[in-house]
């Protein structure tokens, strides 16, 4: 059965968000850039009015100002974009549950099963474009095709405010003349590899012997060849963006740390990483330790654990093991990073014999609850009170743990 897949792509998303919020900006060249105050900021998005004057994503602020002297430069406000993105996704979810967020401003929809309920894919596309325009104030381009690849390629064909349908029959006529770089999945590196094989257009790739591509680039060579012929079997997966690969945190230290002091920071990082893993319902199998000194010497080592864990104690133990193995106690450290990888979600939990693990688990769980209710600094390890502590001991604790407070204090 042929599928009906849709890609919804917000036009100049960041700039459009600002234009939607501030009517004064509509129709004007809006440029969202790193930090306009600093000259080395980079353009993150430009409205179509600014693009018409040659402003492109990736230019420096100085270059953009030169191209478009009347441009309105705005500092990026990421929470705002996340919020708008979520609002748009909610609208998309009104049409089908099969929505795969692809980036902050793009999403795939599988509307194969919506025909009887909502009409043809083109009608659905018109409806959702209208709703996003009316409710959020942003225009988008919609591509429709029998698979994700053609939907994506279709959306690219007409911007802004486009609505394009690509069928497999259209592929030779509409896609093959395009440069191969335009094909989804071909980046600058592959463009260069393909150029060496005298492949310049998507058509060149589609007509190239597939066995040579397979030998040169492995499975990906065949995937690209199929893409060039408009073939793609990947499903619209609503959970794809939610798959977290690792949870990590790093910190630059206020001064050079050595030996024992690093142990303290590792405790604090392990606690934070473990807590984030538990909150997300994850457990991981690999611990990755990264260290840097102030002279840019750096090191990153990983260790695979015997079983999945979300306990700070396990993470800390593995990190200490890595530290002892790969870093001398005399070497200074300026940056410490700790990550838990090899994540799996909602694992069944293996019980243990002497109950030690369950006890530690309970203890850490209770700490999570206390922190959630009374704040980050309500409870922490005593090592954080030493000189080496970075997260908690920056200021002396003005409320001592209650069990230390035998006498009421006057304040």
């Amino acid at each position: 059965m042929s599928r009906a897949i849709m890609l919804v792509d917000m036009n100049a998303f960041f700039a459009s968000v600002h234009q939607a919020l501030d009517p004064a900006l509509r129709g004007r060249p809006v440029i969202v850039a790193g930090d306009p105050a600093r000259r080395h900021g980079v353009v993150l998005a430009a409205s179509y009015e600014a693009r018409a004057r040659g402003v492109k994503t990736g230019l420096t602020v100085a270059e953009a100002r030169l191209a478009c002297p009347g441009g309105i430069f705005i500092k990026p406000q990421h929470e705002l974009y996340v919020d708008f993105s979520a609002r748009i996704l909610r609208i998309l979810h009104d049409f089908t549950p099969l929505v795969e967020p692809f980036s902050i401003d793009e999403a795939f929809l599988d509307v194969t099963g919506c025909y009887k309920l909502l009409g043809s894919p083109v009608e659905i596309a018109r409806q959702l474009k209208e709703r996003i325009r009316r409710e959020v104030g942003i225009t988008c381009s919609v591509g429709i095709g029998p698979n994700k690849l053609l939907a994506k390629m279709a959306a690219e064909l007409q911007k802004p405010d486009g609505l394009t349908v690509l069928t497999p029959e259209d592929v030779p006529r509409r896609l093959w003349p395009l440069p191969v770089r335009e094909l989804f999945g071909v980046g600058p590196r592959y463009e260069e590899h393909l150029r060496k094989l005298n492949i310049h257009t998507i058509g060149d790739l589609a007509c190239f012997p597939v066995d040579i591509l397979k030998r040169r680039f492995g499975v990906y060579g065949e995937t690209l060849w199929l893409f060039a012929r408009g073939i793609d079997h990947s499903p619209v997966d609503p959970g794809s963006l939610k798959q977290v690969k690792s949870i990590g945190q790093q910190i630059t230290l206020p001064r050079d740390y050595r030996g024992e002091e690093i142990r303290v920071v590792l405790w604090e990082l392990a606690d934070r990483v473990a807590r984030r893993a538990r909150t997300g319902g994850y457990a991981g199998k690999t611990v990755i330790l990264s260290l840097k000194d102030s002279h840019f010497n750096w090191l990153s080592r990983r260790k695979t654990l015997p079983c999945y864990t979300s306990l700070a104690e396990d993470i800390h133990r593995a990190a200490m093991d890595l530290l002892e193995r790969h870093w001398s106690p005399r070497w200074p450290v300026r940056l410490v990073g700790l990550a838990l990888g090899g994540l799996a979600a909602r694992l069944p939990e293996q019980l243990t014999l002497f109950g030690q693990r369950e006890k530690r688990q309970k203890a850490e769980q209770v700490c999570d609850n206390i922190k959630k209710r009374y704040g980050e600094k309500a409870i922490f390890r005593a090592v954080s009170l030493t000189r080496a502590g970075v997260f908690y001991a920056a200021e002396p604790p003005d409320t001592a743990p209650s069990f230390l407070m035998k006498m009421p204090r006057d304040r």
Partner: protein
Amino acid sequence: MKFNASKPALMHAINAVQKAVSPRSPLPVLTGILFEVTGNRLYLTGSDTELTIQCNIEVETETEGAIVLPIRYISDLVRSLPDIPIQFNSIPGSTSVIITYGTSQVSIHGYEPEQYPRLPSINRGTGIQVPQDELKEMLRQVLFAVSNDETRPVFTGVLMQVDGKQFRLVATDTYRLAMKNYQLEEEIEQPVRAIIPGKTLGEVARLTGNTEEKISIILEENHAFFSTADLKIASRLIAGQYPPYEQVIPREFVTRTRVTTREIMDATERASLLARDGYPVVKFTLQENSCVVSVQTQAGWIREEISGLVEGEPLEIWFNARYMSESLRALNSDELCLELTGPLSAAVLRPAGDDSYLSLLLPAKPPKD
């Protein structure tokens, strides 16, 4: 040092000792095997200082002497030699050996023998004698439960306990526990406990024969020794306190079943094929006169019903399929007696009609959706 030996005898001895040698040791001499000729015997020793294995074979000695030869070369070289008489001749004043086979020769550079670790000497310890085949089977029944988590050394070893006439082995990685008892012929005066590295016992199991000939075990304060006619194994003990394992063995049960080991093992292994990501957990439902093995995953579902006698309350419990099949494999019995005290507490697996062995298996919490 000069001697003549046959290829099979040399191969046998090298195979016996080579697992104790770490070819990548930073100390060059430890990357080799010690060859030592006294009388008409060749003593081969391999050691990483923790574990030392010595094997002796009969040779035709011309002059006595010793040398250390690197394992990387000597092992493969001897394996590839033709099966004809082989002569080893160390060049006086050097650390090289010339190996002559027929009209051909090969020379390898080695190391001074003086620095090589020797077998620790036995002072006085508790000694026991066990038939080799019995010990081999005992080890097979417990070694699967040894942990390979180096951060908790105690669990990477096997507890060996001798008390009166009872000889006991216990291993646990905290997820499961295996315990095997053996009745000694002679009584030991002083009870002893020692934690022996799992790696050592793996080698003991590999090297002991399927014979009723006895192996003698001597436990000292810091070392354990195993010896047969041609083999000596010495190992450092693991320091530390073994956890109070006896306290965690359930004494009562709420559900008990007897099923055919093979049937439940096959069902578990088939079910685990559907649960390949993360932990392969499988559900066991004990109901009237049957045990149902089932699992439902994204890949699909499976349900197998195994008939068996079930006493007590019906119960639903989840186990890691890999742990379950390893435990069943170690059971050494056609019939399994499974005793349960609840869905979240240890299950007891026993071979039906045999009190000398039991293993515990901790369940997994039922997966949440």
